[in-house]
């Protein structure tokens, strides 16, 4: 089957399914802005990793806790 054979089908489809419009009916930026503002802040993975490392170090070396407290 070639493109020539498809022409009647193409015309039929184009008539039954006409284009719906090329551009949105309204400006979508305000919705986009709302979406950006309502998004939760990204999880601070680096901060969490540093805190976990510090906690692990204190568990591994509890004798260091007084020294750490003295630094505060």
């Amino acid at each position, binding site marked *: 089957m070639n493109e020539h054979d498809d022409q009647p089908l*193409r015309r039929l489809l184009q008539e039954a399914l006409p284009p719906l419009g090329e551009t949105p009916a309204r400006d979508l930026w305000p919705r986009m802005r709302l979406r950006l503002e309502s998004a939760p802040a990204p999880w601070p993975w680096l901060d969490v990793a540093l805190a976990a490392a510090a906690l692990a170090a204190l568990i591994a070396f509890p004798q260091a806790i007084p020294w750490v407290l003295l630094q505060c």
Partner: protein
Amino acid sequence: MDLARRFAAGEIDAFEELFRAHQPDVYRWILRLVRDPAVAEDLTIETFWRIYRARARFDPDRCFGAWARRIAVNLAMGHLRHSHREVEMPQAAIEACPGPPLRDHVLSREARTAIARAFASLPARLRAVAELALIEQTPYCEIAAALGITVQAVKSREFRAVRRLRELLSKLGITP
């Protein structure tokens, strides 16, 4: 610093500029596939939301428009695959848009609805190619780039879509 680099660095003003510049193209590609303006608006927002979240991974030397189009088309294809709703012509659109008359006949409203339903029943992969190639007359190379497949695959899907549509339409007593 150019716009793409400012966007990749997280500048919201640069993102707004890119949004306004590429929103029509993104919306148009999605609408062609989902054929529902409300869904197309939602998916356009979702496309740019994903773009914004992925800004740190964006290479400013690459074409922003092509990247946005791929994300948009993937989202639209996902919608076609997973939506349980049939993507039908809204009745209002059928009535409001008579379309160009054929030489030999004019389709009745019932025939249009039946054809739209037959079209909507195609698998998403075939429907997307049929929509773009048969209805929108989009060049094969553009379809291939947007769908991330080869031109040969586009032609193959178009062939299968035409065969399937002919079967469906003949069952409805419509022989194009």
